[in-house]
């Protein structure tokens, strides 16, 4: 069946369900007994399973099926929700997300089976249901193993075959300085509940590291389809002795043979003859072969993102996605658009009819009237189209609670994320770009901002660290604030570091205000983290954030109070492409000043201009405002004739005001912002250019850079 036409719907809905799952799991972790939540998760998993099945994504279906199973048990009260379970479920969620990412790119779910997650899920479900029936498990098995003589001390793990794919994980483990051990565990011949013992062994091992592969495979071990021994490949940071001791601690384990594992590469997928001393059930091996064969393809897609030179920031592949980007639009917004378009047609018809009547006496007035009408329609149309492009910031931030939860576990700090203003809307293009910078700031707050729990208690703060993410609209801007109540920025430390790094000289440092010092953090390769963690601290941080945000036409500011925390404020323009601007004349040149940053326009008498520290200022109703002579900083030939008063455009950046001296005001106009390209080395004062009605170009002044 050709299901490709449903692909977009599938992707959209899957995203929604995954988000529901993630949200609900977060709640579940806090309130393990919440029946509504459990039902919600069950439903979401169930829908996902159904959808994946319809689309033919078997692996996805299987994983969701097992997740659903676990919840079936939870729902029927057979087991309770524990944090291990939530962890596994989150891992399952990640796996589902990576399936989805694959589907987005290639319309195929990829070849990752996620056996491990499925097995863990199953073992949890089995452990729950089997609890009561465990004792009665299979006494029949008792007699059988007696006969099988165990080869003493044989290190059978030596014959475990490793596929190409698994080899990758080996390399990763090596990179993380993990030990790779082979293990062969021999149970006592008298052991009755082999599966239960094996489960205990796995559990003991999983506390210390990670079981990568088992022979026979985990499913078979759980089903007791093995003799008195089984072999494992295992990654851990612990020593060999500790692992051995941990395994032998499990009762009824006769012996555990542990040793470093050498990789035998199973490069020929067709190689059937596996030199295993005791051929244990060949069948479960089967699915691995296609996996190995399909690997090169998967590996190719995996290396693609690495190939794009963009560091860290650009994780997404540049490969053309299989599905176009879409925006879901409220039907009401579309209705408004339709109405406006019909009005536009009416306006056009009005103009046509004026043209055809050709009665000179009345036509001028009527013509003007129609033009005005047309103007109001186009303005409204622009506004509505912009609204269609707007998406609530929720779409980006709703993954952060999960991220903070994971960070909290990883860093072993208790912390909580408080979010407000998720409904604030931003342009789609901004939404797409803002995720990474925000994530970065949150990680920063979690890793560097917040103190350890003990430290917090010692300081008399509440034990749980708080991180806030607030989004709100402010005039023509949207502000997003990332705050924490941690230690704040140690200005002295930054100052010393800056001197040490040669960013500034000691004298300069002397004269810099705290704020200026903090701004140094946004310089490239400046990190004060004492150690590099994989959470943050590689020194490619804040400058990347800053560049990105400035690329979106916004700016970022940092405030910090020692001991009370720090906050990063991102200001973003509501819309990108079209803005209202005030056109001004300077000499013979025309410039546009974005209306959003204009406070007022004043006529100032030359005699009212005062001088403070050789800088010109005016006193405007009690506020002292510095004057900026635009003609001077833009190298425009000053008009030589003496004037009595100046036209001053008062602009604001945050709380700061400044007065821009202009020669003439032309008027307000809607302008389309265009980039002037990267070759020309234009100053930051120029934010772009626009084309006026007569084809002339006017440059747009970047008020943020001027003030």
């Amino acid at each position, binding site marked *: 069946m050709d299901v490709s036409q449903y692909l977009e719907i599938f992707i959209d809905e899957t995203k929604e369900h995954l988000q529901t799952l993630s949200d609900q799991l977060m709640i579940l972790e806090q309130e393990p007994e919440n029946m509504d939540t459990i039902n919600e998760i069950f439903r979401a998993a169930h829908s996902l399973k159904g959808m994946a099945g319809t689309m033919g994504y078997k692996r996805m279906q299987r994983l969701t099926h097992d997740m659903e199973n676990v919840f079936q048990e939870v729902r029927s009260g057979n087991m309770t929700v524990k944090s291990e379970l939530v962890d596994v479920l989150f891992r399952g969620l990640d796996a589902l997300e990576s399936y989805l990412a694959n589907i987005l790119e290639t319309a195929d779910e990829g070849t990752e089976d996620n056996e491990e997650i499925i097995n863990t899920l199953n073992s949890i479900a089995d452990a729950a249901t089997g609890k009561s029936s465990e004792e009665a498990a299979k006494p029949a098995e008792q007699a059988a193993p007696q006969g099988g003589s165990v080869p003493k001390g044989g290190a059978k793990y030596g014959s475990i075959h490793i596929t190409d794919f698994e080899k990758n994980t080996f390399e990763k483990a090596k990179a993380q300085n993990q030990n790779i051990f082979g293990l062969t565990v021999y149970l006592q011949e008298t052991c009755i509940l082999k599966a239960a013992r094996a489960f205990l062994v796995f559990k003991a091992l999983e506390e210390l590291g990670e079981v990568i592969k088992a022979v026979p495979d985990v499913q078979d071990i759980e089903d007791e389809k093995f003799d008195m021994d089984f072999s494992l490949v295992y990654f851990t940071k612990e020593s060999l002795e500790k692992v051995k001791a941990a395994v032998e601690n499990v009762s009824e384990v006769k012996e555990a043979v542990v040793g470093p594992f050498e990789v035998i590469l199973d490069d020929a997928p067709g190689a059937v003859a596996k030199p295993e001393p005791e051929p244990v059930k060949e069948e479960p091996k089967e699915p691995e072969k296609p996996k190995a064969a399909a690997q090169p393809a998967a590996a190719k897609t995996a290396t693609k993102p690495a190939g794009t030179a963009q560091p860290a920031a650009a994780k997404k592949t540049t490969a053309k996605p299989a599905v176009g980007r879409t925006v879901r639009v409220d039907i009401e917004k579309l209705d408004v658009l339709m109405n406006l378009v019909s009005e536009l047609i009416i306006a056009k018809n009005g103009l046509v009819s004026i043209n055809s009547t050709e009665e000179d006496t009345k036509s001028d007035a009527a013509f003007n009237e129609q033009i005005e009408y047309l103007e109001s329609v186009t303005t409204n149309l622009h506004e509505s189209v912009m609204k269609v492009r707007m998406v609530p910031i929720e779409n980006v931030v709703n993954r952060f609670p999960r991220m903070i939860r994971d960070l909290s576990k990883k860093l072993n700090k208790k912390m909580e994320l408080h979010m407000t203003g998720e409904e604030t809307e931003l342009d789609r293009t901004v939404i797409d770009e803002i995720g990474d910078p925000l994530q970065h700031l949150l990680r920063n707050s979690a890793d560097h901002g917040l103190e350890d729990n003990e430290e917090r208690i010692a300081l008399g703060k509440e034990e749980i660290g708080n991180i806030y993410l607030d989004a709100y609209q402010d005039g023509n801007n949207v502000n997003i604030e990332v705050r924490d109540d941690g230690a704040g920025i140690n200005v002295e430390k930054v100052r010393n570091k800056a001197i040490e790094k040669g960013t500034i000289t000691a004298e300069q440092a002397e004269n810099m205000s705290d704020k200026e010092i903090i701004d140094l953090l946004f310089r490239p390769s400046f990190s004060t983290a004492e150690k590099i963690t994989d959470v943050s601290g590689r020194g490619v941080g804040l400058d990347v954030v800053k560049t990105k945000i400035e690329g979106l036409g916004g700016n970022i500011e940092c405030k910090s109070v020692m001991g009370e925390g720090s906050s990063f404020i991102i200001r973003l323009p509501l819309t990108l492409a079209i803005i209202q601007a005030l056109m001004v004349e300077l000499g013979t040149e025309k410039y546009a000043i974005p209306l959003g940053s204009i406070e007022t326009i004043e006529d100032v008498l030359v005699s009212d201009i005062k001088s403070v520290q050789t800088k010109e200022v005016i006193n405007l109703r009690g506020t002292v405002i510095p004057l900026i002579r635009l003609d001077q900083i833009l190298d425009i030939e000053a008009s030589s004739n003496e004037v009595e008063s100046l036209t001053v455009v008062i602009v604001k950046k945050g709380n700061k005001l400044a007065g821009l001296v202009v020669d003439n005001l032309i008027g307000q106009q809607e302008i389309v912002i265009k980039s002037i390209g990267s070759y020309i080395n234009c100053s930051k004062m*120029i934010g772009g250019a626009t084309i006026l009605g007569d084809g002339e170009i006017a440059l747009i002044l970047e008020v943020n850079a001027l003030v």
Partner: protein
Amino acid sequence: MEEISDVQNIEIASEGKQYIVVRLGTEQYGIDIKYVDNIVRNQRITRVPKAQHYFKGVINLRGEIIPVMSLRLKFGLKPDEYTNATRIIIIKLEQQSAIGIIVDEVKEVVTLTGSSIDKATTSDPSDLIQYLSGVGKHGNGLISLLNISAVIVGRESKDVV
């Protein structure tokens, strides 16, 4: 950037290439035709403050804003005198980023094969040499072949920050 110029050199050596011959003062320069997007008459240029001195500003080319550089100023010659023959050559090194180059005159299109191109000699006293990929012989005249990527993003631009 080195990569681009290398590729260019290799191509010049192997196959015949078409060049647009332009005049700057009394000298002739060749621009590889594959980078040329368009040739337009001189038009109103809007100055961009604080830009590199050899950038004359930006022009509006059918709704697209394109920066324009003066080849004369870049090469340290006398400033342009706009005449009826003055043209702006729109160069596209990569998609989405065009740039205009002001020349005194566009003369013709010539095809040069590898054998009629010499390497630019390093004894040339000016540092103009960095912008050349070779010297082509055509008829009686010599044509200095521009290494267009070096011209556009060349060292000069880094000096003026």
